[in-house]
């Protein structure tokens, strides 16, 4: 995955209030305004939607966003690209439906219970598949979906097989279709918000730092004492949990499960595409990607109908992102903004002497007080190329 030498270094400038230029303040202000406006737009969307169809597209996009954010726990932090996360949305969906149908549970209890069960199931799967890296991991993730597809199709007495499974609606019959869409839209948005909060929290924790170290160089991280196996497994389980919640929510909304669509590699590849397009290292990357990809998918379905052409479009889009924008849109915008940053006269922010002095001062500090924060230690090891964070 992205290497150490990438420009978007994870170390953050937040929290170093002195030394912040007016430019930075403007950017922060802009971000806040943007966040408020976008948040208001999202919340007001059901009011603005002109008809039930537009509203249902909104629900689909919101649930894609939930899928993508769930995926990004593994993909973004550890750089392990899973093409098979449809396994967890599918299991979440089937788990929820079966708990409602067989055990007569309350749908919302069933949703959470199914997600917990999927998280438990993800433990052995994670132990097996996280033993390998890179391409083998991708293979295993694809294999997982294919197995589950086989099982769901063959085990017809439980899953209904190719006949599909009808999921009872969680709201009573008096709640009409558009109102259902509206409620599920807000539920999905809430799920995305919770998942993003957890992501943000992990991003700033020691756990998150360890995970990002794994992403940059797993062997070095291990050598430095990061418990790589346990960390990867933990984040894998968290990811499975949130993805399963999103899948269960989708099942409750859609009301019908078919193995071909639940355990489909396509769904998994949507998640990858959305996250990569938005930027797997940024908090809102997957959400942005979900909006773009979800909208274009619906657009294609409306305009080209059932033809297979949407596969070509998806393939081309994925290829373009991989070839030309593997870091995603948000880092690209960040880089664009950085170009307008004043006082950036040279490519390299620090001369070698300055860097030496800087490192020496950090060494002094950590030698004097043993309480240097993680961030400082991180900074000390950042090579000069990503020196923009060292100011």
């Amino acid at each position, binding site marked *: 995955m992205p290497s150490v030498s990438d420009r978007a270094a994870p170390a953050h400038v937040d929290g170093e209030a002195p030394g912040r230029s007016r430019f930075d303040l403007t950017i922060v202000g802009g971000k806040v305004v943007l966040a408020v406006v976008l948040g208001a737009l999202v919340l007001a969307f059901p009011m603005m939607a002109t008809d039930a169809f537009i509203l249902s597209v909104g629900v689909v996009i919101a649930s894609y966003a939930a899928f993508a954010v769930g995926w990004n726990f593994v993909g973004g932090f550890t750089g392990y690209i899973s093409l098979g996360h449809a396994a967890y949305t599918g299991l979440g969906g089937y788990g929820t439906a079966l708990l409602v149908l067989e055990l007569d549970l309350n749908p919302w209890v069933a949703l959470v219970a199914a997600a917990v069960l999927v998280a438990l199931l993800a433990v052995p799967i994670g132990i097996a598949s996280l*033993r390998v890296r890179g*391409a083998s991991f991708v293979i*295993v993730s694809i*294999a997982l979906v294919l197995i589950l597809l086989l099982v769901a199709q063959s085990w017809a007495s439980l899953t209904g097989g190719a006949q599909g499974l009808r999921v009872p609606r969680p709201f009573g019959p008096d709640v009409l279709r558009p109102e259902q869409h509206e409620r599920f839209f807000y539920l999905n948005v809430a799920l995305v918000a919770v998942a993003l909060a957890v992501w943000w929290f992990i991003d700033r924790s020691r756990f998150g730092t360890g995970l990002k170290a794994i992403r940059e160089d797993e062997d070095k991280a291990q050598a430095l004492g990061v418990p790589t196996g346990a960390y990867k497994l933990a984040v894998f389980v968290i990811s499975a949990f949130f993805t399963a919640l999103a899948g269960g929510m989708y099942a409750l909304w859609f009301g019908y499960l078919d193995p071909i669509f639940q355990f489909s*590699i396509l769904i998994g590849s949507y998640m990858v595409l959305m996250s990569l397009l938005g930027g797997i290292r940024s908090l809102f990357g997957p959400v942005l990607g979900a909006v773009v990809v979800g909208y274009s998918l619906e657009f294609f379905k409306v305009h080209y109908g059932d033809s*297979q052409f949407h596969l070509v479009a998806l393939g081309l889009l*994925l290829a373009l992102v*991989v*070839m030309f924008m593997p870091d995603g849109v948000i880092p690209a915008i960040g880089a664009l903004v950085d170009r307008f940053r004043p006082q950036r006269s040279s490519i390299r922010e620090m001369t070698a002497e300055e860097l030496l002095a800087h490192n020496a001062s950090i060494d002094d500090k950590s030698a004097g007080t043993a309480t240097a924060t993680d961030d400082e230690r991180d900074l000390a090891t950042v090579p000069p190329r990503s020196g923009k964070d060292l100011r």
Partner: protein
Amino acid sequence: MSGSLLLQTLILGVLLGGLYALLAAGLTLYFGVMRVVMIAHSAFLILAAYLAWFFHQQTGLDPLLSLAVTVPLFFVVGYLMQRGLISRLRPATLTMMSVLLTFAIALAIEGMLGFLFTSTQRRIQLGYSGSSIEFFGARIAVVKLIAFGLAAAALVALFLLLKMTRFGQALRATIQHPEAARLLGVNTDRIAGFGFGLGLATAAIGGTALALDSTIYPSLHWHWIGPLMAIIVVGGLGSIPGAAAAALLLGVTQSLLQLPLGTTWAQTVFYVALFATLLVRPQGFFGGRLAQRF
């Protein structure tokens, strides 16, 4: 269970394993030269099968003759794909991004096939499609024998090419140690492109063999990619003999399991083998040093 049924199943397993072995050899080649896991391999396989079907449909000639077009064509496509796309990815993230890139190519191929030929199931009907040979009470369809013969011939040719020719030597050198090969005057970039072309040519041959005796449809490649990936992981990424051995073993096991379990559940043997391999020996049973990190 009668002995002849068992024998028949065993033979069918070996015949299927031969095709698996050829395709897995192609995947191993890509992995060897570029450390790339080519998800689109089976999509190209289905593409070749469609080309064979289309050729037969249009001309009425034997689909085997389409090999004269598809093999060179796929070789060139493979070369161009390596030079134009794969080698342009960032080295640091090559392994992961190439998986996504080839996955995207697979989607595009599936979409194009569905777009051009619709998702109707297609089958080639030949004069000898229905005929079969008796062999100690086991009935083996002639088309399956032809498919196996094709796969075996291609594998032998590939083996001879790699072992006997200067080009094969250069290719193996590139796989073993690219820097050293470059120092000795091998143009590793070009050789890697040719390696890719060779790999894709195996898909052309395999696809034609597949078109002879099975029904094809655009999304069929998903049914192939899983088993093939399992085979190269079990065999150990990067080892052609390992891939061939795993292919034969798993092909025969799948055939034998079809008797008690039925076709669908028998497929799971690949995935069971895949997960068992990862738990016991993640680098595969035949792979060496190469496979460790991938």
